[in-house]
C-alpha cells in the first residue's frame, strides 16, 4: 500500500471518529437541557450515550461516579482499560466520568484511547459539571453570569452552546456551518451578509476548505473563525433562536452523511470502501441520526445501482423498499475480492427485494408475518472475472462469439478446466471462513448473474443451481463448495444461456456471474435432509382446468421434499396443482385421479452418502413417516376407494396404510394457500408485473427462495397475434380461455367432425373413433399433428359428446382442441382437458377450446371438410369412419405450408394460420419496411429502432426548430416487447408554433406506428411514440429527461438527422 493510501486511510479513520464524537456531543447536549430529569436519571442517560462515541463501541462501557454513588449500566464488567475525567464543580472534585473497555484492544500511538477521545471525555465531564452547577444555582441571576463566562458569544440559547462545542472540537465543521448560515442569511436578504460573503470568498479561494488537509489550512483558520463568529452575531440579530437552532441541527446532520455520499457516489470506490461507509452509517443511525429524505433517496438509488441492478424498472421499485441500513446486513454476508466493484446479481436482487417488500407489508397482511428467507451469503459478480484473471482464463469470455457447435463441444472442457483451477487466495480465505460459519448444514449454490431474473428476460433455468450436502471435514466441504462455484461460473459459457442471450439480443452484454449460497430449508429425517414440502407459484395461471378459475387466481405447484420436482416438468410424476385464488376447485376429483396424479417420488439430500437422491414416497413413509414434519397434513389415506384427508399422526399406520400425497391438510387446515396468494398479489402489485416465486416449508415456517417476473419458458410466452392475416390463410381463431404458447410446424390435422360424430349409429362406432385416434397417435409425427374434436376429449361413460380416449391415445399430439359447436340452441360444455389435465401440463401439450359460433371467429370448416382425407391410406381398417375422422396433410393441401397456432393469454386470443415452414406467419406487406416480420421475438426492438431512425431522417429540422433527436429506453436497449413504446427525446429550439407543429407531426407517426404494431402483434396502444421535448435550459440544468443525454449509464442515443446544406 502506498504512503498516500495509508494517509488517506488514517484520514478516513479520523473522520469517522470525528463523526462519532460530534454525535456524542450532540446527544449529550440534548440530554443536559432536559430539566425534567433528576440527576441520577440524567447520569443513566449519559452513560448510554457515551460508548458509541468511542473507537470500539461494542466493548465500551461508561459510568459516572458522583458524590460516592456509581451510575453504571447493567452488566458492568471489570474494565481492561480505563479513561476518566473528573467532574469538578467550583474547584471541588465531586466525581468522575469513566470510559472503559471490557476487552483488550490494540494500543495506538496514544495508548488505548485516541487523543480526541481524551479531549472528548474531559469536555463531557465539564459539561456535566456545568449543568450540575446550573441546577444548583437555578432561579438565581448567577446563572446568566456563569453562562457568560463559558460562552464567548455571551448568549444563553442552546444553539450557542452547540456552536461553542463545535468550535472546540471541530473547527472545520464550525466554519462549514457558519458558511451555510451566511448563505442562508444572504438568501433571506440580510444586508450584512453581503459584505461577510465577500470576505469569505476572498479568503477561501486558494484553500478549498473541503479538500484540503488540515495542517495547511492553519494559516487562514483564525481569520475564518473570526469571520464565522461575525456571521453568528448577524444571525442572532436577524433570526429568533429557534430558527437558528433548527438550521444548525439540520446542517450538522447533513454533514454527518457526507462521508457516505462521497463513498457511494464515487464510481471508483471499491466495495470495501462502500462497506466501511455503510458500517459507519449504521453506527450513527443506531444513535438516532436521521438523514434528509431527499438525500436518503439519492443514496438508496446509488446503493441499489452498486449492489443490485442498474435497470431502471428495478430501481424504481427497490428504492421504496431497500433502506441504506439494510445493506449493513448484506455486507456482513458478502464475499468479494479487495478491489471488487461487482454486484450481487439478478437472483439475489430479486429475492432480497421480495423479502423487503414482504417485511414492509407484513403489518397489513398478518399471514405474511411468518414468511422468512433462508440464511444467504453472496459472492460479488466480478469475483468470477477475478477467478478468470487469476487462472489466465480470460479467453473464455469470447466463447459466446463462437459457433454453437463449438460452444457445445468445448463446454465440457470448460467445466473441467474451471473445476481444476484454484481460487484467488483472498477469496479462498473468505470461503473457508464461510464454511466454518455454516457448519454441516446442506447448502445450495445458485447462480445469480447480472442478467438473470431481470424484468424482461428471466433466464429461468439457464444457469445452474447445485445442492451440496455439505458434510464431512472442513477441507472436504470447502472443496465441494469451490467445485460448485466453479461449475456455476462455467455455466455462463454453456450453450443454453448463450443461445438464450442471442435470442434476447443480450449477447454483447458483459455477463458477470454473482453467486448465492443459501442454507437449504429443511429438517433431518433419518439419513435424509429435506423440507416438508416445496414448490413454485405463479401470479398468472396459464393452465386453467376449469372456466371458473380466473387467470389472476394464480397457480401453485407443490411437491413433498425439495422443490426440484415442482420446478421442472416431469414425465413420470406429478406435482399437486392448486389455484391459490380458487383452492376449492381441484384438478383431481375422483379417488382414481387423486391417486394417479399424486406425487410418487421425493427429492432429498442423503446426509450419509453425501448425495442428492430421489426416493419413492411410500418407501420413505414406511421408514420415516413418523418423523416427517407435517406429514399428517401432507398425505391422505386411501381405503375402500375412499380418500380421507383429515388425518392425525395418531391414526396413521405408516407400515400398512395406503397413503398418497394430496396436501389436503396443508390446503384446508393451514394458511399456506392464503400466504402464497397474498404473496403473489402483493409482489405482482409492487413489481407491476406478474411474478413467479419459489418456496419451501420446513414444517415450522414458510421460506421464500426466489422471486422474479413471471417467466415464460420457451414455448409458453404470450405470442403476438397478427391482425392482417387474410381469412384464407387462417384455419381458426379463438377468444375464450386461451393460454399462452406457440405451436409451430404442424404438418397434420386430425379432425373429428362434430356433426358426423353425433350421427354415429351406435356406441361401437363411437368407440372405434377413439381407437382410430389412438392408432393415428402412433403413426403421425410426434408433436407435429393436432387433434380437433367435438366436446370433451377423454369422455368416459357417455361418450357421445366427446371421443373416448385415454392420455396414451393422444400422447403425441402437439395440441388438443375441443370444439363447442352449437346443436340447436345448446352449446356443449367442454372438458378443459380435465380427464388428463396433468398429463397435458407435464408434457407441454397445448389445450385450446374453440367456440365456432361466437361472433368474429374464424372457423375454416371448408378446409377441414374438403381437404383430401388420408385416413384410409394410413389405417385402412378404419376406412368406414372416413366421414367422421379426417386426417389432413397440411403441406400437401397448402403448397408446402405448415400450420402454426399462436396463443396469447394476455389478449385471450389465439389464431391458427398457414405459413411457410420456419416462419411464424405469411408475409403480406412485403414492401412496408425493410424489416417487416416483427412477430419474431428479437424483431420488436429492431423494427422500432428502424422506425425511430426513419422518423429522425424525415424530421425537417428547419421547419420544426429541432436541434437533435435521441432514442432511449427499451428500443435503444434492445429489450422492447410487442407492447413497448418508442421513447424519443427531441432537443427543441424553436417557437411555440413550431413546437405545436412538431407535436402534431410526431402524433401522426405515433398513431400510424401503433396501427402497424397492432396489425402485427395484436397489442393495441394509443400511440407508439413517447416523445419528450427538452430545451437548452433542460440540458444546461440537467432537468427532466435531459439527464439522459451523455449520462454515464443508459445514455440516450443520438439519431442522425438530415440537415440542409449550410
Amino acid at each position: 500500500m502506498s504512503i498516500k493510501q495509508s494517509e488517506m486511510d488514517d484520514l478516513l479513520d479520523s473522520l469517522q471518529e470525528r463523526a462519532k464524537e460530534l454525535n456524542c456531543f450532540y446527544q449529550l447536549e440534548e440530554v443536559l437541557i432536559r430539566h425534567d430529569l433528576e440527576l441520577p436519571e440524567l447520569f443513566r442517560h449519559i452513560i448510554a450515550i457515551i460508548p458509541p462515541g468511542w473507537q470500539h463501541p461494542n466493548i465500551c462501557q461508561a459510568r459516572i461516579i458522583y458524590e460516592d454513588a456509581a451510575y453504571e449500566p447493567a452488566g458492568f464488567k471489570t474494565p481492561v482499560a480505563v479513561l476518566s475525567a473528573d467532574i469538578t464543580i467550583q474547584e471541588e472534585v465531586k466525581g468522575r466520568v469513566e470510559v472503559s473497555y471490557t476487552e483488550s484492544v490494540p494500543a495506538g500511538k496514544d495508548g488505548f484511547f485516541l487523543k480526541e477521545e481524551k479531549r472528548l471525555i474531559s469536555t463531557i465531564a465539564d459539561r456535566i459539571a456545568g449543568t450540575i452547577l446550573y441546577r444548583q444555582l437555578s432561579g438565581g441571576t448567577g446563572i446568566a453570569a456563569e453562562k457568560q463566562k463559558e460562552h464567548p458569544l455571551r448568549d444563553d440559547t442552546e444553539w450557542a452552546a452547540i456552536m461553542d462545542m463545535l468550535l472546540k472540537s471541530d473547527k472545520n465543521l464550525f466554519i462549514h456551518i457558519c458558511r451555510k448560515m451566511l448563505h442562508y442569511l444572504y438568501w433571506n436578504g440580510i444586508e450584512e451578509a453581503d459584505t461577510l460573503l465577500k470576505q469569505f470568498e476572498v479568503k477561501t479561494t486558494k484553500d478549498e476548505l473541503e479538500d484540503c488537509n488540515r495542517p495547511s489550512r492553519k494559516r487562514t483558520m483564525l481569520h475564518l473563525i473570526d469571520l464565522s463568529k461575525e456571521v453568528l452575531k448577524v444571525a442572532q440579530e436577524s433570526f429568533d433562536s429557534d430558527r437558528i437552532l433548527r438550521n444548525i441541527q439540520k446542517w450538522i446532520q447533513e454533514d454527518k452523511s457526507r462521508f457516505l455520499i462521497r463513498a457511494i457516489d464515487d464510481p471508483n470506490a471499491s466495495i470495501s470502501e462502500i462497506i466501511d461507509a455503510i458500517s459507519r452509517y449504521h453506527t450513527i443511525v443506531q444513535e438516532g441520526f436521521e438523514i434528509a429524505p431527499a438525500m436518503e433517496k439519492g443514496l438508496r438509488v446509488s446503493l441499489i445501482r452498486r449492489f443490485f441492478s442498474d435497470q431502471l424498472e428495478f430501481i424504481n421499485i427497490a428504492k421504496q423498499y431497500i433502506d441504506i441500513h439494510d445493506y449493513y446486513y448484506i455486507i456482513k454476508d458478502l464475499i468479494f475480492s479487495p478491489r471488487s466493484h461487482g454486484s450481487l446479481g439478478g437472483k439475489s436482487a430479486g429475492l432480497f427485494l421480495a423479502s423487503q417488500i414482504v417485511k414492509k407489508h407484513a403489518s397489513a397482511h398478518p399471514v405474511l408475518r411468518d414468511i422468512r428467507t433462508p440464511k444467504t451469503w453472496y459472492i460479488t459478480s466480478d469475483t468470477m472475472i477475478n477467478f478468470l484473471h487469476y487462472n489466465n482464463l480470460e479467453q473464455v469470455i469470447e466463447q459466446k462469439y463462437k459457433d454453437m457447435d463449438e460452444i457445445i463441444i468445448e463446454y465440457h472442457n470448460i467445466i473441467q478446466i474451471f473445476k481444476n483451477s484454484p481460487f484467488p487466495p483472498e477469496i479462498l480465505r473468505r470461503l473457508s471462513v464461510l464454511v466454518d460459519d455454516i457448519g454441516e448444514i446442506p447448502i445450495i449454490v445458485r447462480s445469480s448473474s447480472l442478467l438473470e431474473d431481470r424484468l424482461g428476460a428471466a433466464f429461468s433455468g439457464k444457469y445452474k443451481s447445485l445442492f451440496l450436502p455439505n458434510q464431512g471435514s472442513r477441507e472436504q466441504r470447502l472443496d465441494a463448495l469451490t467445485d460448485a462455484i466453479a461449475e456455476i461460473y462455467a455455466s455462463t459459457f454453456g450453450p443454453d444461456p448463450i443461445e438464450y442471450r442471442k435470442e434476447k439480443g443480450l449477447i454483447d452484454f458483459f455477463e458477470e456471474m454473482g453467486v448465492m449460497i443459501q442454507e437449504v430449508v429443511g429438517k433431518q429425517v433419518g439419513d435424509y435432509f429435506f423440507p416438508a414440502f416445496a414448490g413454485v407459484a405463479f401470479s398468472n395461471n396459464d393452465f386453467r382446468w376449469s372456466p371458473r378459475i380466473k387467470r389472476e387466481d394464480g397457480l401453485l405447484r407443490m411437491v413433498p421434499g425439495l422443490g426440484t420436482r415442482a420446478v421442472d416438468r416431469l414425465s413420470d410424476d406429478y406435482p399437486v396443482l392448486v389455484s391459490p385464488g380458487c383452492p376449492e376447485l381441484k384438478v383431481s376429483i375422483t379417488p382414481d385421479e387423486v391417486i394417479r396424479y399424486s406425487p410418487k417420488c421425493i427429492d432429498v439430500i442423503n446426509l450419509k452418502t453425501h448425495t442428492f437422491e430421489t426416493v419413492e414416497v411410500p418407501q420413505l413413509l414406511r421408514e420415516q413417516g413418523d418423523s416427517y414434519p407435517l406429514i399428517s397434513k401432507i398425505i391422505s389415506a386411501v381405503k375402500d376407494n375412499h380418500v380421507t384427508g383429515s388425518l392425525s399422526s395418531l391414526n396413521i399406520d405408516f407400515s400398512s396404510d395406503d397413503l398418497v400425497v394430496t396436501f389436503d391438510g396443508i390446503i384446508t387446515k393451514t394458511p399456506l394457500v392464503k400466504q402464497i396468494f397474498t404473496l403473489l398479489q402483493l409482489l405482482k402489485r409492487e413489481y407491476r408485473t406478474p411474478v413467479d416465486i419459489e418456496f419451501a416449508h420446513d414444517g415450522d415456517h414458510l421460506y421464500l427462495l426466489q422471486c422474479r417476473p413471471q417467466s415464460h419458458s420457451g414455448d409458453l410466452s404470450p405470442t403476438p397475434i397478427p391482425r392482417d392475416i387474410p381469412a384464407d390463410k387462417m384455419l381458426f381463431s379463438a377468444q375464450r380461455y386461451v393460454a399462452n404458447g406457440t405451436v409451430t410446424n404442424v404438418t397434420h390435422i386430425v379432425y373429428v367432425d362434430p356433426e358426423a360424430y353425433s350421427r354415429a349409429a351406435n356406441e361401437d362406432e363411437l368407440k372405434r373413433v377413439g381407437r382410430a385416434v389412438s392408432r393415428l397417435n402412433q403413426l403421425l409425427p410426434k408433436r407435429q399433428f393436432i387433434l380437433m374434436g367435438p366436446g370433451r376429449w377423454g369422455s368416459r361413460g357417455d361418450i357421445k359428446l366427446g371421443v373416448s380416449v385415454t392420455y396414451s391415445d393422444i400422447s403425441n399430439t402437439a395440441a388438443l382442441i375441443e370444439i363447442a359447436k352449437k346443436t340447436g340452441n345448446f352449446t356443449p360444455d367442454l372438458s378443459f382437458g380435465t380427464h388428463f389435465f396433468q398429463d397435458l401440463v407435464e408434457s407441454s401439450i397445448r389445450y385450446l377450446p374453440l367456440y365456432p359460433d361466437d361472433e368474429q371467429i374464424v372457423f375454416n370448416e371448408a378446409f377441414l371438410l374438403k381437404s383430401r382425407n388420408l385416413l384410409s391410406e394410413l389405417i385402412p381398417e378404419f376406412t368406414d369412419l372416413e366421414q367422421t375422422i379426417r386426417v389432413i396433410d397440411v403441406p400437401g393441401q397448402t403448397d408446402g405450408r405448415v400450420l402454426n397456432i399462436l396463443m396469447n393469454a394476455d389478449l385471450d386470443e389465439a389464431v391458427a394460420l398457414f405459413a411457410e415452414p420456419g416462419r411464424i406467419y405469411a408475409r403480406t406487406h412485403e414492401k412496408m419496411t425493410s424489416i417487416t416480420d416483427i412477430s419474431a421475438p428479437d424483431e420488436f426492438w429492431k423494427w422500432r429502432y428502424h422506425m425511430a431512425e426513419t422518423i429522425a431522417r424525415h424530421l425537417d429540422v428547419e421547419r420544426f426548430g429541432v436541434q437533435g433527436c435521441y432514442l432511449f429506453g427499451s428500443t435503444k436497449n434492445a429489450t422492447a416487447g410487442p407492447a413497448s413504446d418508442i421513447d424519443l427525446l427531441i432537443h427543441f429550439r424553436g417557437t411555440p408554433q413550431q413546437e405545436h407543429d412538431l407535436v402534431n407531426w410526431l402524433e401522426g407517426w405515433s398513431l400510424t406506428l401503433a396501427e402497424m404494431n397492432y396489425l402485427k402483434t395484436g397489442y393495441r396502444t394509443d400511440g407508439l411514440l413517447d416523445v419528450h421535448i427538452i430545451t437548452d435550459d433542460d440540458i444546461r440544468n440537467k432537468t427532466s429527461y435531459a439527464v439522459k443525454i451523455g449520462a454515464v449509464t443508459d445514455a440516450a442515443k443520438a439519431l442522425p438527422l438530415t440537415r440542409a446544406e449550410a
Partner: protein
Amino acid sequence: MNQKAYNPFDTAKAQFDKVAEMLELDNGTRALLRNTMKEYHFNIPVRMDDGTVTVFRGFRVVHNDARGPAKGGIRFHPQETIDTVRALSMWMTWKCAVVDIPLGGAKGGVICDPHHLSSREQEQICRGWMRQLSRDVGPLQDVPAPDVMTNSQHMLWMLDEYETLRNGRYPGVITGKPVGMGGSLGRTEATGYGVMYTVREALKEMNIRPEDTTASFQGFGNVSQYAIRLYQQMGGTAVAASCWDQNDQRSYTFRKSGGIDMEELMPITDKFGAIDRKKAEKLGYEILDGGEWITQDVDILVPAALENEINAETVTSIKDSVKIIAEGANGPTTIEADKVLHERGIFVIPDFLANAGGVTCSYFEQVQCNMNYYWEKDEVLGKLDTKMTAAFIAVSELAKQKNLYMRDAAYVIAIDRVAQACKNRGWA
C-alpha cells in the same frame, strides 16, 4: 337431432325386444318392460362458493322393481341425457336378475362436472338430490350407489341428509360406503373371486380338473389380481398377465411358463395394477407385447380390464387350446368377435354374469345394513360363492337345455325372471 344418431336407450330396447321375442312375452309385459316404471326430473339449486346460485338438473329413473327394491348408481356427468340413464337402469334390472338377487333396476344422476365444483358445492348437490327424493328412495324402495364421478364420500353426504330428514339411522339406504360406515368387507375381492367361481363351475361341467389348466389374464388390476389368487388356490397355473405401463405409454404381457407368482409381483405393482417392467425382468419374467396375452397356449382367457379387447382382429390369434373365456371386464368382446367365438365353440361366460360379484356384494352390504349386523369377510365371500355358483348353474343349464349361446341364455334367464315377477304381481 338426427334420427339415425346413436341412442343407448334404443339399443337397450332392441336387445330386450330380441329376447322378448324368444320368450314369446305378451304385449302387456313387453310394454311394461320396454319402458321405465317411474322417472323423477328435478332442480337442485346450489349456493355456489362465490355467492351466486346455480341450478343443477337431477334425475332418478326406476326401470323395474317387481323383484325387490330398485338398485342403481348415481352419476355426475356434465352432459347426461335421460335416455342414457334409462338404458342404464334397464341394464341394472337384468343384471340383478341374472344373479338372482331380489332387487330391481334403477339409475340416477346430476348434470354437472365435479371438476369444476368445489367439495362444498358437490356436497350441496348430493344433499339437494337427497332432499328432493327422500320420500322415494329408502332401504325398501330404491337404493342408490356410486357410479361415474361419484364415490363413497358422495354416498355418505347423501346418507347423512336422508337420515337427518328421516330422523333415524338407515345405513341400508345407500351402498358403496366405506367399511365402518356401513360398508361391507370383501368388496375388493368380490368381482375377481366372482369371475373365478364361474370358471370353476364351468370347468366342473367340462370335467376338467383346475390343476390341469393354465390361464392368461388381460389386465392386472383388482379383478385380475383376485381372480388369479383364487385360480391358484384352485390349483390352476396362471402363466401370463398383461398390464399398462404409464412411463412407456404402452402395455406389456408378463409371462412365466411355470406360473406367475403373486407374492413376488405384488410388491412391484402400483395401485393401478402396473407391474414394474425392469424389476419383473430381473425376477425372470418374459416381457412380451401387451397384446400377447391373448395368443397364449392356455385353457382359459380372462379379459379383465378393457372393452373391445377381443375384436375381429385379435380373435383370430386365440389358440385352439382355449376352452373358456370369462369376461371379467364390461364388454370385452365385440359383436363380430362374439360370432367367431360362438362358431368355434369356445365357452364364453358373459360379462354381466361373470362380473356380477360386484353387484352381489352391494346387495350383501344392503342386507347387512338393514339388520345392522356385519359379517366377517369369509362369510361374505362364502355367500358370494353360493350366489355366483347358483347363478352360473342356472344359466348354463338353460343354455344346455335350450341349446342357447351362453350370452343369450343369461339374458333370457334374467328377463324371464323379471317378467314372471311382474306377472305374479298382476302387473301384466
